């Protein structure tokens, strides 16, 4: 019964050195040499300024930008403390929150009469979803175009160019990366 205590401690120590220290160090070493941009957070740099990560969603409230998914982190879009809302489907608080977001979108663009795409008024799982559905982007085209003095068609075309289709036409869902779209908007303007 007690004979196995010694090997238990020693094997644990050796496997800790191997899997808990050597392995992550080796992977970090290779990753930092071979793929430094991705290993360090896929940061987006324009004009010498780091404006975000192409993988992490940001919050937008100015009508001239495309808005992303609502975020349940504290404060919203907190990249240092990810979290979902965990509101249950029957929770009245969920219904109220969604209703408020619909109203905010309608206020920002009173001409938008279409039903609001669900992803634009529900919080993401991480609170840091970088993407919206193409429908959610098209929904905002008129508002963005108006506040920038652009034609709807030009902005819609820009959205079309930024739609990432399913991988191999099969996996995931078509999406638009909001930060990239907004950067393109800014640069084209």
């Amino acid at each position: 019964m007690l004979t196995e205590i010694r090997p238990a401690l020693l094997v644990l120590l050796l496997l800790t050195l191997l899997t808990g220290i050597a392995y992550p160090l080796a992977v970090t070493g290779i990753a930092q040499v071979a793929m430094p941009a991705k290993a360090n957070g896929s940061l987006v740099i324009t004009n010498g300024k780091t404006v975000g990560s192409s993988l992490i969603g940001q919050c937008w409230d100015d009508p001239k930008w495309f808005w992303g998914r609502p975020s349940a982190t504290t404060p919203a879009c907190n990249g240092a403390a990810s979290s979902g809302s965990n509101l249950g489907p029957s929770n009245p608080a969920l219904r109220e929150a969604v209703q408020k977001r619909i109203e905010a979108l309608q206020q920002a663009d009173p001409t938008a009469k279409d039903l609001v795409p669900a992803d634009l008024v529900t919080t993401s799982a991480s609170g840091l979803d970088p993407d919206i559905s193409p429908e959610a982007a098209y929904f905002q085209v008129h508002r963005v175009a108006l506040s920038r003095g652009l034609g709807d068609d030009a902005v819609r075309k820009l959205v079309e160019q930024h739609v990432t289709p399913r991988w191999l036409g099969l996996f995931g869902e078509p999406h638009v990366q909001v930060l990239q779209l907004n950067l393109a908007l800014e640069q084209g303007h």
Partner: protein
Amino acid sequence: MTGNAILQLVVYLAALLACVPLLGGYMARVYEGQPIRLGRVLGPLERLIYRLSGVNPDQEMAWKRYAWATLWFNVAGALVVFAIQRLQGVLPLNPQGFAAVAPDLAFNTASSFASNTNWQSYGGETTLSHFTQMAALTTQNFVSAATGMAVLVALIRGLARKSGTTLGNFWVDLVRTTLYILLPLSVVFALFLVGQGVVQTFDASATVDLLNPLKDDKGASILTQILALGPAASQIAIKQLGTNGGGFFNANSAHPFENATALGNFVEVLAILLIPAALCDTFGRMVKDRRQGFVLLAAMTIVFVAVTLFALSFEHSPNPGLAGLHIDQSVGNMEGKEVRFGATGSAIWSIVTTVASNGSVNSMHDSFTPLGGMLPMWMIQLGEVIYGGVGSGLYGMLVFAIIAVFIAGLMVGRTPEYLGKKIEPFEMKMAALVILIVPALVLVGAAVAVVVEPGTKAIANPGAHGFSEILYAFTSAANNNGSAFGGLSANAPFWNTALGICMLVGRFWLIVPVLAMAGSLVGKQHIPSGPGTLPTHTPLFVMLLIGVVLLVGALTYVPALALGPVAEHLSFGVTR
């Protein structure tokens, strides 16, 4: 549900099943000590570990010694995880300067990672230093997985050996699993993940300037966004391959830095079931009848496909709670889901992670439709034998196979036998322990939690859903899953302690009867099958096995599920 959703499921299954013979055969060679190519590279390291720790790799162990080795190793592992958390403030690699973890939380996390549960009461990026994540958690990701596989292999040897009293050497099985199976797969997988955008750095965070300055609730300006970073990819790789599930970040596999792309998501969800599915073939090869393994795999796959189709249908449905609002829910129930995965990628993942004892999530199960959220909970309650955790899933399924032949034996009045071994009262007692301990933990635990104030205080959602949160928590802990209805505020002394105990009992009180059963089986004379033997390689046995799993594993929980998700589902028609 769309055609694309079904196609995603079909391609997923095809990829999974294609890997089974390759990996299954390889693992059989690892466990039978046959020469493998990696042995030339890692053989010296393997022998060095034995020499330094004083292990004689040729010495076989009887079941009791095997069990003591398993238990001591895991006790030591849990104590080390606890100690590292308590001391992280003075240990290196703590760029965020995190203080020691509170004792109840440290106990919970130690139980959680030693038992391969990986329930997270903590938020990774806000609580744990890089050193804790690596030396404590990544290590346990490997060795708790290897423990499960070692116990499985001991049970397989108990069935496969024609005579004898020993089951192999725990240290050899543990080290060979880690060195030759988990580590090489993890290195390749981790680097692939970095290529998809999963972070791997020792920096604590990056700060970026916002194009759109914001105001917080108090009116103060927010001009920057801080992005938590860390050595995530190396941990994510083993968290999926070892059916661990504990995320580097709080949002787990929903966090873009843990699961960045649709391709990465596909490979991650494949990695969860890869080893559990392949172990079926390893089993078949080791008992010298591959059909026996494929029968178990078939039973698992049938249940998995059926349940996943329902899950897809539920999550592609609009949330009735939002009915009547000016909203287009044609893409499904999107609260708590990421756009790049959508309803399809989230629903498939939710079932994969709960049939296995993985528990990582790429969407928030708490916000699923009532029935969509019930399915993951129910899959855990089946005992995680549909593929299941690495090792633990198949040893659970073998227990069910033994129960199935026992029931069939009762029907025709013959002594039941499985793979030429007579199933007698001792085996049935152990099997009964295995299938009774966990439901007792879940139902008694949930019953206590709903009547005491520290239990109900943690509930986040009103009504029946609040009960579902409690039921899910005990289900997840006792079955060593680790996923959650995350609204529950489980980081409190009552919950940390109760769930920590459930995790330990649910893991190790199962391992001991399983090893005892293996020890009893290995000594039994192998009897050749006769005309009265129930063949266990036929479609009939597949159906019998599915029937037993559903009957035993599910009926236990129907009343409880009726009070939670079912009641919530029915309430929609009433309130609106």
